[in-house]
Protein backbone atom coordinates (compact mmCIF):
# COMPACT_ATOMS: atom_id res chain seq x y z
CA UNK A 1 0.00 0.00 0.00
CA UNK A 2 1.37 3.38 -0.89
CA UNK A 3 2.05 5.91 1.83
CA UNK A 4 1.83 9.69 1.59
CA UNK A 5 4.73 11.66 3.08
CA UNK A 6 4.73 15.42 3.68
CA UNK A 7 7.92 16.86 2.18
CA UNK A 8 9.58 20.11 1.24
CA UNK A 9 10.47 20.36 -2.47
CA UNK A 10 14.21 20.36 -1.81
CA UNK A 11 13.92 17.26 0.38
CA UNK A 12 11.66 15.57 -2.18
CA UNK A 13 14.25 16.07 -4.93
CA UNK A 14 16.91 14.54 -2.69
CA UNK A 15 14.88 11.53 -1.60
CA UNK A 16 13.65 10.91 -5.15
CA UNK A 17 17.28 10.92 -6.33
CA UNK A 18 18.20 8.32 -3.71
CA UNK A 19 15.15 6.21 -4.61
CA UNK A 20 16.30 6.43 -8.26
CA UNK A 21 19.63 4.83 -7.36
CA UNK A 22 21.70 8.01 -7.05
CA UNK A 23 24.43 7.47 -4.46
CA UNK A 24 26.64 10.50 -5.15
CA UNK A 25 25.85 14.13 -4.51
CA UNK A 26 28.30 17.01 -4.93
CA UNK A 27 27.14 20.52 -4.12
CA UNK A 28 27.71 23.86 -2.51
CA UNK A 29 25.29 25.72 -0.23
CA UNK A 30 23.23 28.52 -1.76
CA UNK A 31 19.77 29.81 -0.90
CA UNK A 32 17.09 28.62 -1.67
CA UNK A 33 18.33 25.06 -2.30
CA UNK A 34 20.64 24.44 0.64
CA UNK A 35 18.28 21.83 2.12
CA UNK A 36 19.33 19.49 -0.70
CA UNK A 37 22.95 19.50 0.50
CA UNK A 38 21.79 19.18 4.12
CA UNK A 39 19.39 16.33 3.36
CA UNK A 40 22.02 14.50 1.32
CA UNK A 41 24.65 14.97 4.06
CA UNK A 42 22.34 13.19 6.47
CA UNK A 43 20.78 10.63 4.14
CA UNK A 44 23.64 9.45 1.90
CA UNK A 45 25.64 7.76 4.67
CA UNK A 46 22.46 5.81 5.61
CA UNK A 47 22.33 4.24 2.12
CA UNK A 48 26.10 3.74 1.68
CA UNK A 49 26.17 6.78 -0.55
CA UNK A 50 28.36 9.85 -0.49
CA UNK A 51 27.73 13.57 -0.20
CA UNK A 52 30.63 15.97 -0.58
CA UNK A 53 30.39 19.69 0.02
CA UNK A 54 32.72 21.00 -2.67
CA UNK A 55 34.79 24.18 -2.45
CA UNK A 56 32.73 25.76 -5.23
CA UNK A 57 30.01 25.01 -7.74
CA UNK A 58 32.79 24.66 -10.31
CA UNK A 59 34.45 21.90 -8.31
CA UNK A 60 31.08 20.28 -7.63
CA UNK A 61 30.14 19.98 -11.30
CA UNK A 62 33.59 18.58 -12.08
CA UNK A 63 33.23 15.99 -9.32
CA UNK A 64 29.95 15.14 -11.05
CA UNK A 65 31.88 14.80 -14.31
CA UNK A 66 34.31 12.39 -12.64
CA UNK A 67 31.65 10.30 -10.92
CA UNK A 68 29.58 10.14 -14.09
CA UNK A 69 32.66 9.07 -16.08
CA UNK A 70 33.03 6.25 -13.58
CA UNK A 71 29.48 5.13 -14.40
CA UNK A 72 27.66 6.40 -11.30
CA UNK A 73 24.25 8.03 -11.07
CA UNK A 74 25.11 11.45 -9.74
CA UNK A 75 23.33 14.65 -8.70
CA UNK A 76 24.31 18.25 -8.16
CA UNK A 77 22.12 21.20 -7.29
CA UNK A 78 22.39 24.93 -6.97
CA UNK A 79 20.50 28.16 -7.46
CA UNK A 80 20.87 30.71 -10.24
CA UNK A 81 24.26 32.39 -9.51
CA UNK A 82 25.74 29.00 -8.65
CA UNK A 83 24.30 27.40 -11.78
CA UNK A 84 26.11 30.02 -13.87
CA UNK A 85 29.36 28.76 -12.35
CA UNK A 86 28.49 25.24 -13.43
CA UNK A 87 28.12 26.28 -17.06
CA UNK A 88 31.64 25.31 -18.09
CA UNK A 89 31.37 21.85 -16.57
CA UNK A 90 27.92 21.27 -18.06
CA UNK A 91 29.27 22.03 -21.53
CA UNK A 92 32.05 19.47 -21.00
CA UNK A 93 29.51 16.92 -19.73
CA UNK A 94 27.48 17.42 -22.93
CA UNK A 95 30.63 17.30 -25.08
CA UNK A 96 31.67 14.04 -23.40
CA UNK A 97 28.14 12.56 -23.62
CA UNK A 98 27.98 12.06 -19.87
CA UNK A 99 24.73 11.59 -17.95
CA UNK A 100 23.93 13.49 -14.75
CA UNK A 101 21.11 15.41 -13.11
CA UNK A 102 21.46 19.11 -12.27
CA UNK A 103 18.87 20.94 -10.18
CA UNK A 104 18.39 24.70 -10.43
CA UNK A 105 16.16 26.04 -7.66
CA UNK A 106 15.93 29.46 -9.28
CA UNK A 107 16.15 32.80 -7.50
CA UNK A 108 16.03 36.35 -8.83
CA UNK A 109 18.80 37.85 -10.92
CA UNK A 110 20.93 39.09 -12.60
CA UNK A 111 24.00 39.11 -10.38
CA UNK A 112 23.40 38.20 -6.79
CA UNK A 113 19.80 39.26 -7.50
CA UNK A 114 17.68 38.08 -4.62
CA UNK A 115 16.84 34.89 -2.79
CA UNK A 116 13.14 34.72 -3.65
CA UNK A 117 11.54 32.50 -6.33
CA UNK A 118 12.13 33.32 -10.00
CA UNK A 119 12.02 31.70 -13.41
CA UNK A 120 14.53 34.04 -14.96
CA UNK A 121 17.01 31.31 -15.90
CA UNK A 122 14.69 30.00 -18.64
CA UNK A 123 16.92 31.26 -21.44
CA UNK A 124 20.04 29.94 -19.73
CA UNK A 125 18.55 26.48 -19.14
CA UNK A 126 16.91 26.04 -22.53
CA UNK A 127 19.23 27.97 -24.86
CA UNK A 128 22.64 28.69 -23.41
CA UNK A 129 23.65 26.59 -20.43
CA UNK A 130 27.15 26.26 -21.86
CA UNK A 131 29.31 27.17 -24.82
CA UNK A 132 29.05 25.23 -28.06
CA UNK A 133 26.21 23.62 -30.01
CA UNK A 134 24.39 21.94 -27.18
CA UNK A 135 21.07 21.29 -25.51
CA UNK A 136 19.98 19.93 -22.19
CA UNK A 137 16.80 18.13 -21.34
CA UNK A 138 15.00 20.60 -19.05
CA UNK A 139 12.11 19.45 -16.86
CA UNK A 140 9.86 21.95 -15.06
CA UNK A 141 7.78 20.43 -12.25
CA UNK A 142 4.88 22.37 -10.68
CA UNK A 143 4.16 20.28 -7.58
CA UNK A 144 6.17 18.31 -5.05
CA UNK A 145 4.69 15.04 -6.36
CA UNK A 146 5.78 16.01 -9.85
CA UNK A 147 9.23 16.93 -8.51
CA UNK A 148 9.79 13.34 -7.40
CA UNK A 149 8.37 11.87 -10.61
CA UNK A 150 10.48 14.15 -12.79
CA UNK A 151 13.62 13.56 -10.69
CA UNK A 152 13.22 9.84 -11.29
CA UNK A 153 12.55 10.48 -14.99
CA UNK A 154 15.57 12.81 -15.16
CA UNK A 155 17.96 10.06 -14.07
CA UNK A 156 16.46 7.64 -16.59
CA UNK A 157 16.58 10.13 -19.47
CA UNK A 158 20.16 11.10 -18.56
CA UNK A 159 21.30 7.48 -18.75
CA UNK A 160 19.20 6.55 -21.80
CA UNK A 161 20.41 9.48 -23.87
CA UNK A 162 23.80 10.03 -22.18
CA UNK A 163 23.10 13.69 -21.51
CA UNK A 164 22.85 16.05 -18.55
CA UNK A 165 19.24 16.66 -17.52
CA UNK A 166 18.17 19.76 -15.60
CA UNK A 167 15.31 20.03 -13.14
CA UNK A 168 14.32 23.68 -13.40
CA UNK A 169 12.54 24.48 -10.15
CA UNK A 170 12.30 27.72 -8.21
CA UNK A 171 12.52 28.97 -4.65
CA UNK A 172 8.81 28.43 -4.03
CA UNK A 173 8.85 24.78 -5.13
CA UNK A 174 12.07 24.21 -3.20
CA UNK A 175 10.63 25.56 0.02
CA UNK A 176 6.95 24.57 -0.02
CA UNK A 177 5.58 21.33 1.42
CA UNK A 178 3.07 18.91 -0.11
CA UNK A 179 2.26 15.23 0.34
CA UNK A 180 4.10 12.86 -2.00
CA UNK A 181 3.77 9.20 -2.92
CA UNK A 182 7.05 7.51 -3.89
CA UNK A 183 5.28 4.32 -4.99
CA UNK A 184 4.17 6.10 -8.14
CA UNK A 185 7.71 6.16 -9.56
CA UNK A 186 8.08 4.15 -12.76
CA UNK A 187 11.75 3.57 -13.58
CA UNK A 188 12.73 2.67 -17.15
CA UNK A 189 15.19 0.01 -18.22
CA UNK A 190 18.74 1.38 -18.59
CA UNK A 191 21.45 -0.20 -20.74
CA UNK A 192 24.78 -1.17 -19.16
CA UNK A 193 27.39 1.62 -19.15
CA UNK A 194 30.07 -0.14 -21.19
CA UNK A 195 31.62 3.25 -22.06
CA UNK A 196 32.53 4.18 -18.46
CA UNK A 197 36.12 4.77 -17.32
CA UNK A 198 36.36 2.14 -14.60
CA UNK A 199 39.69 0.51 -15.50
CA UNK A 200 39.87 -1.91 -18.44
CA UNK A 201 41.23 -4.79 -16.30
CA UNK A 202 43.48 -5.62 -19.31
CA UNK A 203 40.39 -7.10 -20.98
CA UNK A 204 39.41 -4.40 -23.48
CA UNK A 205 40.73 -1.29 -25.24
CA UNK A 206 40.87 1.83 -23.04
CA UNK A 207 37.66 3.83 -22.70
CA UNK A 208 38.32 7.52 -23.29
CA UNK A 209 35.92 10.17 -21.97
CA UNK A 210 36.66 13.26 -24.01
CA UNK A 211 35.16 16.38 -25.53
CA UNK A 212 38.15 17.44 -27.68
CA UNK A 213 38.08 16.72 -31.41
CA UNK A 214 40.90 18.65 -33.01
CA UNK A 215 39.92 17.60 -36.56
CA UNK A 216 37.02 19.88 -37.61
CA UNK A 217 35.34 17.08 -39.55
CA UNK A 218 35.39 14.75 -36.53
CA UNK A 219 33.91 17.47 -34.34
CA UNK A 220 31.18 18.32 -36.82
CA UNK A 221 30.29 14.64 -37.31
CA UNK A 222 29.92 14.22 -33.57
CA UNK A 223 27.84 17.38 -33.13
CA UNK A 224 25.54 16.27 -35.97
CA UNK A 225 25.23 12.85 -34.32
CA UNK A 226 24.33 14.54 -31.03
CA UNK A 227 21.68 16.65 -32.76
CA UNK A 228 20.13 13.47 -34.19
CA UNK A 229 19.86 12.33 -30.59
CA UNK A 230 18.10 15.62 -29.77
CA UNK A 231 15.66 14.92 -32.62
CA UNK A 232 14.80 11.55 -31.06
CA UNK A 233 14.35 13.20 -27.66
CA UNK A 234 12.14 15.80 -29.33
CA UNK A 235 10.06 13.06 -30.88
CA UNK A 236 9.69 10.82 -27.85
CA UNK A 237 10.08 12.76 -24.63
CA UNK A 238 7.98 15.93 -24.90
CA UNK A 239 5.59 16.31 -21.96
CA UNK A 240 2.86 18.86 -21.39
CA UNK A 241 -0.51 19.31 -19.73
CA UNK A 242 -3.51 21.04 -21.30
CA UNK A 243 -7.13 21.84 -20.57
CA UNK A 244 -10.06 23.36 -22.48
CA UNK A 245 -7.99 24.27 -25.54
CA UNK A 246 -10.28 23.68 -28.53
CA UNK A 247 -12.51 26.63 -29.32
CA UNK A 248 -11.19 28.76 -26.46
CA UNK A 249 -10.89 32.53 -26.73
CA UNK A 250 -7.46 32.53 -25.12
CA UNK A 251 -4.92 29.97 -23.86
CA UNK A 252 -2.69 30.75 -20.89
CA UNK A 253 0.76 29.23 -21.29
CA UNK A 254 2.69 28.79 -18.07
CA UNK A 255 5.07 26.35 -16.35
CA UNK A 256 6.46 25.57 -12.91
CA UNK A 257 5.17 27.46 -9.87
CA UNK A 258 3.52 30.17 -12.00
CA UNK A 259 1.32 27.56 -13.65
CA UNK A 260 -0.19 26.77 -10.23
CA UNK A 261 -1.19 30.41 -9.82
CA UNK A 262 -2.34 30.61 -13.44
CA UNK A 263 -4.48 27.51 -12.97
CA UNK A 264 -6.35 29.15 -10.07
CA UNK A 265 -6.97 32.18 -12.29
CA UNK A 266 -8.12 29.96 -15.18
CA UNK A 267 -10.64 28.10 -12.99
CA UNK A 268 -12.07 31.39 -11.72
CA UNK A 269 -12.23 32.88 -15.21
CA UNK A 270 -14.13 29.86 -16.52
CA UNK A 271 -16.50 29.96 -13.58
CA UNK A 272 -17.25 33.54 -14.59
CA UNK A 273 -17.95 32.57 -18.17
CA UNK A 274 -14.62 33.40 -19.83
CA UNK A 275 -13.66 30.71 -22.34
CA UNK A 276 -10.01 30.30 -21.36
CA UNK A 277 -7.71 27.33 -21.97
CA UNK A 278 -4.60 26.26 -20.08
CA UNK A 279 -1.35 24.86 -21.46
CA UNK A 280 1.64 23.85 -19.35
CA UNK A 281 4.95 22.68 -20.85
CA UNK A 282 6.45 20.06 -18.51
CA UNK A 283 9.53 19.64 -20.69
CA UNK A 284 10.89 23.11 -21.50
CA UNK A 285 13.54 21.42 -23.62
CA UNK A 286 12.40 19.68 -25.72
CA UNK A 287 9.72 22.36 -25.99
CA UNK A 288 6.18 21.16 -26.89
CA UNK A 289 6.36 23.23 -30.09
CA UNK A 290 4.43 20.76 -32.24
CA UNK A 291 1.41 20.75 -29.93
CA UNK A 292 1.44 24.54 -29.54
CA UNK A 293 1.54 24.77 -33.34
CA UNK A 294 -1.66 22.74 -33.49
CA UNK A 295 -3.22 24.79 -30.71
CA UNK A 296 -2.62 27.98 -32.72
CA UNK A 297 -5.47 26.77 -34.95
CA UNK A 298 -7.72 25.94 -32.01
CA UNK A 299 -7.73 29.19 -30.04
CA UNK A 300 -7.77 32.93 -30.71
CA UNK A 301 -4.78 34.17 -28.74
CA UNK A 302 -2.19 33.32 -26.10
CA UNK A 303 -1.10 34.82 -22.81
CA UNK A 304 2.27 33.69 -21.51
CA UNK A 305 2.80 34.12 -17.80
CA UNK A 306 6.04 33.39 -15.93
CA UNK A 307 8.27 34.78 -13.16
CA UNK A 308 10.54 36.77 -15.49
CA UNK A 309 10.39 39.42 -18.20
CA UNK A 310 8.94 37.10 -20.84
CA UNK A 311 11.64 34.59 -21.69
CA UNK A 312 9.25 31.85 -22.95
CA UNK A 313 7.36 34.26 -25.22
CA UNK A 314 9.80 33.73 -28.13
CA UNK A 315 9.34 29.97 -27.96
CA UNK A 316 5.55 30.29 -28.03
CA UNK A 317 5.69 32.72 -30.96
CA UNK A 318 7.99 30.40 -32.90
CA UNK A 319 5.93 27.32 -32.10
CA UNK A 320 2.71 29.01 -33.19
CA UNK A 321 4.43 30.69 -36.17
CA UNK A 322 2.89 33.95 -34.87
CA UNK A 323 -0.49 32.86 -36.24
CA UNK A 324 -2.22 34.32 -33.19
CA UNK A 325 -1.26 37.20 -30.88
CA UNK A 326 0.97 36.24 -27.96
CA UNK A 327 0.75 38.54 -24.94
CA UNK A 328 2.72 38.39 -21.75
CA UNK A 329 2.21 38.99 -18.06
CA UNK A 330 5.05 38.39 -15.62
CA UNK A 331 6.68 39.48 -12.40
CA UNK A 332 10.27 38.98 -11.36
CA UNK A 333 12.41 37.74 -8.46
CA UNK A 334 10.03 37.02 -5.59
CA UNK A 335 7.23 39.37 -6.71
CA UNK A 336 4.83 36.45 -7.03
CA UNK A 337 1.69 37.40 -9.00
CA UNK A 338 -1.60 36.72 -7.27
CA UNK A 339 -4.26 34.69 -9.14
CA UNK A 340 -6.24 37.94 -9.39
CA UNK A 341 -3.36 39.71 -11.17
CA UNK A 342 -3.37 36.98 -13.83
CA UNK A 343 -7.17 37.09 -13.91
CA UNK A 344 -7.05 40.82 -14.65
CA UNK A 345 -4.25 40.35 -17.20
CA UNK A 346 -6.47 37.93 -19.13
CA UNK A 347 -9.37 40.36 -19.06
CA UNK A 348 -7.10 43.20 -20.29
CA UNK A 349 -5.77 41.00 -23.08
CA UNK A 350 -9.26 40.07 -24.22
CA UNK A 351 -10.43 43.71 -24.37
Amino acid at each position, binding site marked *: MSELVLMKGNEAISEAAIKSGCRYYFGYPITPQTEIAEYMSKRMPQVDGLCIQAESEIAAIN*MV*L*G*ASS*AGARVLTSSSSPGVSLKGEGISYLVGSDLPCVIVNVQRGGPGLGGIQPAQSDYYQATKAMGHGDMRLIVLAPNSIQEIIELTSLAFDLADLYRTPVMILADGALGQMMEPVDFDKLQPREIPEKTWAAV*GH*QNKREPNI*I*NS*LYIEPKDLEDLVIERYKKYDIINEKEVKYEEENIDGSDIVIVSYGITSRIAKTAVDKLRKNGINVGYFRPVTLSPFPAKRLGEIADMTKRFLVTELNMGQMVDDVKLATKCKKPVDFYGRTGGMMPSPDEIYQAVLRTLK
Partner: protein
Amino acid sequence: MVVFDRPKSLTDKEFHYCPGCMHGVVHRIIAEVLDELEIKGKTVGIAPVGCSVFAYNYFNCDMIQSPHGRAPAVATGVKRVLPDNIIFTYQGDGDLAAIGTAETVHAAARGENITIIFINNAIYGMTCGQMAPTTIPGQITSTSPYGRKPEIQGLPIKVCEMLAAIDGTAYAERVSADCVKNIRGVKKAIKKAFINQIEKKGFSIVEVLSNCPTYWGMSPVESLEWVKTNMIPYYPLGVYKDVTANKENKKEEE
Protein backbone atom coordinates in the same frame (compact mmCIF):
# COMPACT_ATOMS: atom_id res chain seq x y z
CA MET B 1 68.98 -9.60 -20.33
CA VAL B 2 67.67 -6.05 -20.10
CA VAL B 3 65.62 -4.98 -23.10
CA PHE B 4 64.75 -1.32 -23.61
CA ASP B 5 61.19 -1.77 -24.80
CA ARG B 6 58.08 0.38 -25.04
CA PRO B 7 56.13 0.17 -21.76
CA LYS B 8 52.82 -1.71 -22.12
CA SER B 9 51.10 1.23 -20.44
CA LEU B 10 51.85 3.45 -23.44
CA THR B 11 49.77 3.10 -26.61
CA ASP B 12 51.41 2.94 -30.04
CA LYS B 13 50.37 6.53 -30.76
CA GLU B 14 53.29 8.82 -31.58
CA PHE B 15 53.76 11.76 -29.17
CA HIS B 16 52.96 15.19 -30.62
CA TYR B 17 55.40 16.98 -28.32
CA CYS B 18 58.07 19.34 -29.66
CA PRO B 19 61.62 18.00 -30.11
CA GLY B 20 63.52 18.12 -26.83
CA CYS B 21 60.42 18.56 -24.64
CA MET B 22 60.47 16.39 -21.52
CA HIS B 23 56.73 15.58 -21.52
CA GLY B 24 57.54 12.38 -23.44
CA VAL B 25 60.11 11.30 -20.87
CA VAL B 26 57.70 11.86 -17.98
CA HIS B 27 54.92 10.02 -19.87
CA ARG B 28 57.27 7.09 -20.31
CA ILE B 29 58.23 7.10 -16.63
CA ILE B 30 54.55 7.02 -15.58
CA ALA B 31 53.93 4.15 -17.99
CA GLU B 32 56.93 2.23 -16.63
CA VAL B 33 55.58 2.69 -13.11
CA LEU B 34 52.09 1.48 -14.12
CA ASP B 35 53.76 -1.59 -15.68
CA GLU B 36 56.02 -2.29 -12.73
CA LEU B 37 53.19 -1.96 -10.20
CA GLU B 38 50.88 -3.98 -12.52
CA ILE B 39 48.07 -1.44 -12.15
CA LYS B 40 47.36 -0.47 -15.78
CA GLY B 41 44.06 -2.40 -15.78
CA LYS B 42 42.65 -0.57 -12.80
CA THR B 43 44.06 2.88 -13.50
CA VAL B 44 42.04 5.86 -14.71
CA GLY B 45 44.17 8.79 -15.87
CA ILE B 46 42.99 12.37 -16.16
CA ALA B 47 44.37 14.61 -18.89
CA PRO B 48 44.52 18.40 -18.43
CA VAL B 49 44.17 21.30 -20.82
CA GLY B 50 47.54 22.47 -22.07
CA CYS B 51 50.37 20.86 -24.05
CA SER B 52 49.57 17.47 -22.53
CA VAL B 53 45.85 17.64 -23.39
CA PHE B 54 46.29 14.62 -25.68
CA ALA B 55 47.66 12.48 -22.83
CA TYR B 56 44.44 10.49 -23.17
CA ASN B 57 45.76 9.15 -26.46
CA TYR B 58 49.09 8.01 -25.02
CA PHE B 59 48.36 6.10 -21.83
CA ASN B 60 47.05 2.59 -22.32
CA CYS B 61 44.52 2.83 -19.51
CA ASP B 62 41.03 4.33 -19.24
CA MET B 63 41.33 8.11 -19.58
CA ILE B 64 39.24 11.22 -18.98
CA GLN B 65 39.93 14.63 -20.50
CA SER B 66 39.15 17.27 -17.88
CA PRO B 67 38.06 20.91 -18.14
CA HIS B 68 40.97 23.32 -17.66
CA GLY B 69 42.32 23.12 -14.12
CA ARG B 70 39.53 20.92 -12.81
CA ALA B 71 41.40 17.60 -12.95
CA PRO B 72 41.70 17.23 -9.15
CA ALA B 73 37.90 17.71 -8.82
CA VAL B 74 37.29 15.22 -11.65
CA ALA B 75 39.73 12.82 -9.97
CA THR B 76 37.81 13.25 -6.70
CA GLY B 77 34.58 12.21 -8.42
CA VAL B 78 36.17 9.14 -10.01
CA LYS B 79 38.08 8.08 -6.90
CA ARG B 80 35.04 8.39 -4.62
CA VAL B 81 33.08 6.09 -6.94
CA LEU B 82 36.02 3.71 -7.49
CA PRO B 83 38.06 3.80 -4.25
CA ASP B 84 40.05 0.68 -5.16
CA ASN B 85 41.10 1.92 -8.59
CA ILE B 86 44.20 4.03 -9.18
CA ILE B 87 43.47 7.59 -10.25
CA PHE B 88 46.11 10.02 -11.44
CA THR B 89 46.07 13.48 -12.97
CA TYR B 90 48.73 14.87 -15.28
CA GLN B 91 48.74 18.66 -15.20
CA GLY B 92 50.84 21.60 -16.32
CA ASP B 93 51.55 24.84 -14.47
CA GLY B 94 48.73 26.89 -15.98
CA ASP B 95 46.24 24.10 -15.39
CA LEU B 96 47.27 23.26 -11.82
CA ALA B 97 48.67 26.51 -10.41
CA ALA B 98 46.57 29.20 -12.16
CA ILE B 99 43.06 28.31 -13.28
CA GLY B 100 42.88 25.18 -11.12
CA THR B 101 44.47 26.46 -7.90
CA ALA B 102 41.28 26.09 -5.87
CA GLU B 103 40.64 22.55 -7.09
CA THR B 104 44.27 21.59 -6.32
CA VAL B 105 44.34 23.07 -2.83
CA HIS B 106 40.97 21.61 -1.82
CA ALA B 107 41.68 18.13 -3.19
CA ALA B 108 44.79 18.22 -1.00
CA ALA B 109 42.81 19.56 1.97
CA ARG B 110 40.33 16.70 1.64
CA GLY B 111 43.27 14.32 1.56
CA GLU B 112 41.98 12.71 -1.63
CA ASN B 113 43.83 9.45 -2.16
CA ILE B 114 45.01 10.39 -5.66
CA THR B 115 48.31 10.95 -7.45
CA ILE B 116 49.08 14.25 -9.18
CA ILE B 117 51.94 14.57 -11.63
CA PHE B 118 52.59 18.29 -12.06
CA ILE B 119 54.80 19.50 -14.90
CA ASN B 120 56.29 22.93 -14.18
CA ASN B 121 58.04 24.46 -17.17
CA ALA B 122 57.40 28.09 -16.24
CA ILE B 123 55.53 28.93 -19.43
CA TYR B 124 52.29 28.33 -21.34
CA GLY B 125 53.30 26.07 -24.22
CA MET B 126 50.00 25.25 -25.90
CA THR B 127 49.02 28.88 -26.44
CA CYS B 128 52.58 29.62 -27.66
CA GLY B 129 54.62 31.03 -24.82
CA GLN B 130 52.71 33.25 -22.40
CA MET B 131 53.53 33.87 -18.75
CA ALA B 132 52.70 31.07 -16.32
CA PRO B 133 52.01 31.36 -12.58
CA THR B 134 55.44 29.73 -12.25
CA THR B 135 57.31 32.02 -14.68
CA ILE B 136 60.30 33.22 -12.66
CA PRO B 137 61.07 36.93 -12.06
CA GLY B 138 62.85 38.42 -15.05
CA GLN B 139 61.82 35.60 -17.40
CA ILE B 140 60.72 36.80 -20.81
CA THR B 141 57.46 35.43 -22.23
CA SER B 142 55.06 36.83 -24.82
CA THR B 143 52.91 38.38 -22.06
CA SER B 144 55.91 39.48 -20.00
CA PRO B 145 58.01 40.75 -22.95
CA TYR B 146 60.17 42.97 -20.69
CA GLY B 147 60.74 40.10 -18.26
CA ARG B 148 58.36 39.20 -15.41
CA LYS B 149 58.32 42.18 -13.09
CA PRO B 150 57.08 41.28 -9.59
CA GLU B 151 55.67 44.81 -9.09
CA ILE B 152 53.47 44.37 -12.15
CA GLN B 153 52.96 40.64 -12.67
CA GLY B 154 53.48 39.43 -9.11
CA LEU B 155 55.58 36.53 -7.93
CA PRO B 156 55.47 32.85 -8.87
CA ILE B 157 53.58 30.22 -6.90
CA LYS B 158 55.75 27.54 -5.33
CA VAL B 159 53.34 24.63 -5.46
CA CYS B 160 55.13 22.05 -3.31
CA GLU B 161 55.81 24.61 -0.56
CA MET B 162 52.16 25.71 -0.67
CA LEU B 163 50.73 22.17 -0.58
CA ALA B 164 53.14 21.07 2.14
CA ALA B 165 51.35 23.56 4.38
CA ILE B 166 48.02 21.79 3.83
CA ASP B 167 47.24 19.19 6.51
CA GLY B 168 45.64 16.81 4.01
CA THR B 169 48.76 16.48 1.85
CA ALA B 170 50.53 13.17 2.44
CA TYR B 171 53.44 13.56 0.06
CA ALA B 172 54.86 16.47 -1.94
CA GLU B 173 58.19 16.26 -3.72
CA ARG B 174 59.85 18.44 -6.34
CA VAL B 175 62.12 16.73 -8.84
CA SER B 176 63.71 17.82 -12.11
CA ALA B 177 63.92 16.26 -15.56
CA ASP B 178 67.04 18.23 -16.56
CA CYS B 179 69.65 15.42 -16.52
CA VAL B 180 69.93 11.64 -16.28
CA LYS B 181 70.72 11.63 -12.58
CA ASN B 182 67.70 13.81 -11.79
CA ILE B 183 65.45 11.84 -14.15
CA ARG B 184 66.16 8.78 -12.00
CA GLY B 185 64.81 10.87 -9.11
CA VAL B 186 61.70 11.66 -11.17
CA LYS B 187 61.02 7.96 -11.55
CA LYS B 188 61.60 7.25 -7.87
CA ALA B 189 59.23 10.02 -6.79
CA ILE B 190 56.49 9.10 -9.27
CA LYS B 191 56.66 5.47 -8.21
CA LYS B 192 56.37 6.45 -4.57
CA ALA B 193 53.38 8.67 -5.36
CA PHE B 194 51.56 5.71 -6.94
CA ILE B 195 52.56 3.28 -4.17
CA ASN B 196 51.19 5.79 -1.64
CA GLN B 197 47.84 5.60 -3.39
CA ILE B 198 47.87 1.79 -3.52
CA GLU B 199 48.59 1.81 0.22
CA LYS B 200 45.79 4.38 0.72
CA LYS B 201 48.15 6.94 2.25
CA GLY B 202 46.44 9.93 0.70
CA PHE B 203 47.14 12.95 -1.48
CA SER B 204 50.48 12.71 -3.30
CA ILE B 205 51.94 15.26 -5.69
CA VAL B 206 55.17 15.16 -7.66
CA GLU B 207 56.26 18.45 -9.21
CA VAL B 208 58.58 17.88 -12.15
CA LEU B 209 60.67 20.87 -13.29
CA SER B 210 60.72 20.67 -17.06
CA ASN B 211 61.65 22.61 -20.15
CA CYS B 212 60.11 24.29 -23.17
CA PRO B 213 62.80 24.65 -25.85
CA THR B 214 60.28 25.97 -28.40
CA TYR B 215 58.90 28.90 -26.41
CA TRP B 216 61.98 29.55 -24.34
CA GLY B 217 63.67 29.95 -27.74
CA MET B 218 66.52 27.57 -26.96
CA SER B 219 68.00 24.34 -28.20
CA PRO B 220 66.97 21.29 -26.16
CA VAL B 221 70.41 21.16 -24.51
CA GLU B 222 70.36 24.88 -23.69
CA SER B 223 66.87 24.54 -22.24
CA LEU B 224 67.90 21.74 -19.88
CA GLU B 225 70.86 23.85 -18.82
CA TRP B 226 68.41 26.71 -18.14
CA VAL B 227 66.35 24.42 -15.90
CA LYS B 228 69.50 23.69 -13.91
CA THR B 229 70.83 27.24 -13.67
CA ASN B 230 67.58 29.23 -13.40
CA MET B 231 64.69 27.06 -12.30
CA ILE B 232 66.29 24.77 -9.69
CA PRO B 233 67.70 27.72 -7.69
CA TYR B 234 64.22 29.30 -7.57
CA TYR B 235 62.40 25.99 -7.07
CA PRO B 236 64.70 23.91 -4.86
CA LEU B 237 64.39 20.15 -5.33
CA GLY B 238 63.46 17.89 -2.47
CA VAL B 239 60.75 16.31 -0.36
CA TYR B 240 58.55 19.06 1.06
CA LYS B 241 56.22 16.79 2.93
CA ASP B 242 56.10 13.07 3.51
CA VAL B 243 53.70 11.97 6.17
CA THR B 244 54.27 8.35 5.19
CA ALA B 245 58.00 8.61 5.95
CA ASN B 246 57.29 10.22 9.34
CA LYS B 247 55.02 7.34 10.28
CA GLU B 248 57.65 4.78 9.33
CA ASN B 249 60.37 6.72 11.17
CA LYS B 250 58.23 6.92 14.26
CA LYS B 251 57.67 3.20 14.15
CA GLU B 252 61.42 2.64 13.89
CA GLU B 253 62.00 4.99 16.81
CA GLU B 254 59.52 3.08 18.90
